[in-house]
């Protein structure tokens, strides 16, 4: 099996990008001849792991019993008590406790299969509850704040350097000039919406956290090209 996996995964077909080529699409619209690797969304587990990793929160500890991360307020059915060791809450998703009658909401919303039957292939859906989870859950907001403080530590004062640093950390590439402009315009305009204006440093941090949050929300973060 290992040999076969190596053969498949090191093949040039497997390593293709998802870039679209109109000429190829015209001849083979369904991509049956594998002229590209179809763009695909990360699975819920990977979305969570990537979020934790980029925000610097990931606890890389290996092995041991599964972890019960905190559940959102108001989840009553099949709820569990979260694990006492707080650091364990940020371990990889593979360690997340699985209760058949109460899927972990973040994984559930990103198409975790029904746990009552076997699953040959996972479905992939794009829904409003996913957007709500991304926008409003405590977890993604924590990720964004932590990510922003990482960016601030790497580039303390200059907006422009912060945009570059955030793009590098989230997407492993520098922003295009247009993307940099978008970010700088956002920084300018978004400051007025921050309600808690105790100091300019706080406003700055809050704006940056919202920017980092948006980078997590972008399709680029959860799609493999």
């Amino acid at each position, binding site marked *: 099996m290992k040999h076969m996996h190596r053969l498949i995964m090191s093949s040039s077909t497997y390593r293709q990008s998802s870039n679209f080529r109109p000429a190829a699409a015209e001849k083979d619209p369904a*991509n*049956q001849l594998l002229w590209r690797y179809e763009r695909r969304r990360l699975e819920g587990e990977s979305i969570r792991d990537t979020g934790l990793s980029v925000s610097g929160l990931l606890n890389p500890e290996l092995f041991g019993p599964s972890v019960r991360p905190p559940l959102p307020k*108001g989840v009553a*059915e099949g709820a569990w008590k979260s694990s006492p060791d707080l650091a364990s809450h940020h371990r990889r998703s593979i360690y997340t406790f699985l209760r058949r*009658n109460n899927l972990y909401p973040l994984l559930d919303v990103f198409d975790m299969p029904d746990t009552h039957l076997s699953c040959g292939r996972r*479905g992939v859906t794009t829904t409003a509850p996913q957007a709500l989870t991304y926008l409003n859950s405590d977890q993604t907001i924590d990720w964004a704040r932590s990510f922003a403080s990482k960016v601030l530590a790497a580039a303390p004062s200059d907006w422009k350097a912060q945009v570059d640093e955030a793009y590098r950390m989230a997407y492993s590439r520098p922003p295009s000039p247009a993307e940099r402009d978008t970010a700088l315009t956002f920084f300018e305009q*978004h400051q007025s919406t921050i309600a808690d204006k105790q100091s300019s440093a706080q406003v700055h941090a809050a704006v940056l956290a919202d920017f980092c949050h948006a980078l997590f929300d972008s399709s680029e973060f959860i799609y493999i090209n």
Partner: protein
Amino acid sequence: MKPNEHSRALRSRRDFLLRGTGLDGLALSSLLSAEAALAAPGGANAVNPLASKPPHHAPTAKSVIWLFMEGGPSHIDLFDPKPALERLAGQPVPPSYGKIVTAMGTANNTLMPSKRKWKQYGQSGLWVSDWYSHMAKHADDLTLLRSCWADGLNHVGSVCQMNTGSILGGRPSMGAWTQYGLGAANQDLPAFVVLADEKPVTGGPKNWSSGFLPATYQGTLFRRDGAPILYLDNPESVSAKQQRSKLDLIATLNRQFAADKPEDTDLQARLNSYELAYRMQAAAPEAVDLSKESDETKRLYGIDEPHTAKYGTNLLLARRLVERGVRFVEAYSGSGSMWDSHTDMEGNHGKMCRSSDKPIAGLLSDLKARGLLDETLVVWGGEFGRTPFYEAGDGRDHNPWGFSMWMAGGGVKPGQTIGTTDEIGLRAVDRPIHVHDIHATILHLLGLNHLQLTYLHNGRSERPTLVAGNLIQEIYS
């Protein structure tokens, strides 16, 4: 599902057979084309899996409100009077009934007549016991199914079958199939909503699961405290202006990423999903806000009385939801098996009937007054009925072999009593109606053919009624 699954031959034997070669093949292809269109929701409409889809035939119902009396209401004490039980009281079940295996091993106990007072109501002369005196006033709106039967003996399996067709978890529930077949009529609200009034529903989320269908079709259990949907509200620290500004940035970033990938409909769908989420944040709180309802309406549902307030509130909510285009609302009465009366029939059912009778009658009156009953199918029932012999002196055991349900509105021809149980109410004898038949009929009224509504899963075209299901034709024609 993507057109290329990286696992299919260029033209598989199945494709070959499906697409056909000769004249037979052509006929087959045209027969299957409608099915194929439905069988590929991702392919057919990747941008929005909940986009409204055309039905198979003209529907008579737009929405369903399923009143689920969880735990098993006793047909013998509510809708199916059995004078023979008076005569046979205190005697064992006659040997002609054969061997009976019940959940609690009570089949050797003697027969126990109902203590209820019975009357016939309305033009149709529907028999209703004094436990349901409010509902009885709607006798001419109901069609009673007295010969229902199911496969499960215990609650978890039976509640699951009533929702999904199978006593084993993992299949899509009827609300999920409905969404898969028809999409959502209102994009700003979940199309399949579950309302529980007491404890968690027995068996939990597998009862409103999407099973092997895409997860987007699963039901949404409305939460009773705070926002009805998880993460619906902005976090307290985030102002509305701040959220909007952040959303605008996200939209710009998503557009920038999608700009050179116009062929990818998923990315367009993601862009839309944020706008949808934003609209849902406004629409859902409005839908569940009962403060605009008049006191008169609230009284109709019994919201002003302590014992009917909970279920009444949920049923008023159900009406508001179907009014706004929600396709499927399941409202559990006594969630967590509260109707399960192994002991103390009188105390248990007395309480459960009192808490559900007025709210259900109120719902029917309200739907009717608003002209919604014609397009809303209301279904009443439990996961099974109860035995004619006693358990623990004054209770009744589970009975999946013969029990009653009723339907109203949504194209149902009212005032009928369909099917009968035997003279002690143990088994369905005349015109037995299985759970699959009920499912097939509900889908039919919604405009869906249960034989054509399929989804390819693990190499099989699965359908809502497995390999069974006959329409209860007399219910609508």
